């Protein structure tokens, strides 16, 4: 469906709906769909764009929890966890090419209750991440103006609200412009990390980087590695968001695996380079509580151009992340509305821009409310925990997927190797991270589990009667093995 697509009895060409007069567009029998305009680059930008802000800030709290070695270990262990996520995601999504990503996967493979929960995890994870990014944007602008001696008091709330509303507006107007912007600013933010890495002359130890004098091993022992796992996720949290573009890419079976895998490679490189530069420029006691470690690293090189470049890198990464989160939260909510898991009203597509416009607008006031009222660490923790719950169900998903539809029974765009090793690794690393989160944020973990259990009870006892039970399963697959 690259040039046009046939939906029902009507051929809809990209842009055709924009030109159709309302009375024609609303004729009974005519149908509408999200616009298939994205390529692998946009998928890469969506995934890396959401995550790269984690390299600019947040990951370094892992250093505070266990020292630099623990942070590097957590970085690579989390890298393994997310590589497993990306592999599993790529296989399932190249087959279940639907908006909603993991929600649609869980619906087809596990069942409605799991799908409802995964949908909620996605919406919560991305909305809280969007809120965190909006808060950070306000903080960044305030810090930059203060650092440059510009007099006056910045109203951070104005910039938080502007970030949320302006990016929602961009998403409302169309996915192509929105993710093309993400492609540009994410690439710029990644280049900023590479430039910083090269500027610190890693080929000449001691010239700029002072690992020998700054390095300590494990100040809190091996327990520090476990504690660091919580923030180790921050290096990659959100890469699974690539799957939300499934209904808007021109070739899902090719673009989704390609965009997700290259995104994961980009993040592994960026994460390791970030750790190497920062741990060679700052004592771990400072690095472990810095707000903007990469920007600080840029300042410590003494190069004013690099400092400005890293400021814009940080700002771009933050904006790209918020932009991707708005895209993903709205697609997940839209998919749930379309299946009646949430009110059907949210399943509408804009006739001109072909975006889930009601879902996009719905989250604007919610995000603003959280941004001006909730502390940053709570929104971040809420996001991490929701993501972690989703990854756990993903491991279950792939086991059931391979068991119900073995290789060869349905067409797959990508088949991940070494099954069930990635699934087993994912489960083990999720359990380790739950322990780490429980040690640091036990109350929030219990509170969140209570919230999701209550929501599940509401779904089973009240909401499920509205779900169109047969119509929600749209994949033309054979009957599952054993059923």
């Amino acid at each position, binding site marked *: 469906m690259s040039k046009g697509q046939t939906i029902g009895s009507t051929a809809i060409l990209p842009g055709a709906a924009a030109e159709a007069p309302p009375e024609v567009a609303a004729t009974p029998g005519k149908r509408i769909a999200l616009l298939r305009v994205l390529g692998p680059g946009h998928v890469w930008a969506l995934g890396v764009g959401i995550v790269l802000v984690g390299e600019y800030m947040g990951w370094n709290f892992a250093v505070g929890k266990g020292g630099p070695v623990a942070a590097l270990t957590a970085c690579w262990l989390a890298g393994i966890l997310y590589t497993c996520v990306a592999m599993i995601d790529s296989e399932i999504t*190249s087959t279940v090419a639907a908006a909603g990503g993991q929600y649609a996967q869980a619906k087809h493979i596990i069942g409605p209750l799991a799908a409802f929960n995964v949908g909620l995890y996605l919406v919560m994870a991305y909305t809280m991440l969007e809120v965190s990014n909006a808060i950070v944007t306000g903080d960044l602008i305030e810090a930059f103006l203060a650092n440059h001696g510009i007099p006056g008091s910045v109203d951070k709330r104005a910039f938080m609200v502007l970030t949320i509303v302006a990016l929602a507006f961009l998403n409302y107007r169309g996915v192509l412009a929105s993710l093309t912007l993400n492609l540009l600013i994410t690439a710029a933010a990644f280049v900023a990390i590479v430039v910083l890495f090269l500027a610190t002359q890693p080929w000449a130890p001691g010239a700029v980087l002072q690992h020998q004098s700054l390095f300590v091993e494990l100040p809190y022992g091996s327990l520090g590695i476990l504690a660091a796992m919580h923030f180790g996720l921050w290096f990659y949290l959100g890469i699974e968001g690539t799957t939300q573009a499934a209904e808007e890419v021109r070739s899902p079976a090719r673009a989704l695996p390609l965009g997700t895998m290259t995104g994961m490679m980009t993040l592994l490189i960026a994460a390791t380079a970030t750790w190497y530069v920062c741990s060679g420029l700052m004592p771990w006691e400072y690095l472990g509580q810095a707000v903007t470690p990469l920007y600080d690293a840029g300042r410590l090189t003494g190069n004013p151009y690099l400092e400005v470049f890293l400021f814009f890198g940080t700002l771009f990464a933050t904006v790209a992340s918020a932009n991707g989160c708005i895209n993903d939260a709205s697609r997940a909510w839209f998919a749930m509305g379309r299946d009646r898991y949430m009110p059907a009203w949210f399943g509408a597509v804009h006739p001109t821009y072909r975006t889930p416009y009601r879902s996009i607008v719905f989250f604007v006031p919610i995000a603003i409310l959280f941004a001006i009222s909730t502390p940053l660490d709570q929104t971040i923790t809420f996001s991490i925990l929701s993501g972690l719950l989703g990854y756990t169900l993903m491991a279950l998903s792939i086991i059931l997927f391979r068991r119900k539809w073995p290789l060869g029974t349905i067409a797959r765009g990508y*088949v991940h190797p070494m099954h069930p090793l990635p699934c087993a690794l994912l489960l083990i690393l999720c359990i380790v991270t739950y322990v780490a989160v429980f040690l640091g944020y036990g109350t929030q973990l219990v509170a969140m589990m209570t919230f999701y259990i209550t929501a599940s009870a509401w779904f089973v006892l009240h909401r499920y009667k509205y779900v169109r039970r047969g119509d929600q399963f*749209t994949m033309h697959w054979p009957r599952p093995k054993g059923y």
Partner: protein
Amino acid sequence: MVEIMNWGAWGIAAALALWMGADLLRVNRTYGEDYLLSSEEGEIIDAETGETAARS
């Protein structure tokens, strides 16, 4: 200068929010609900490529 930036940010945010709200209402009134809600989950057309590569 910072004061102008603050008010500018509020002003732009308000204008964009109003535009989105107005457009949402206009679309809801102009088009039928059946048409707006007629989207269905997508299907893929090029899956055999990866399957063939994995089995070879």
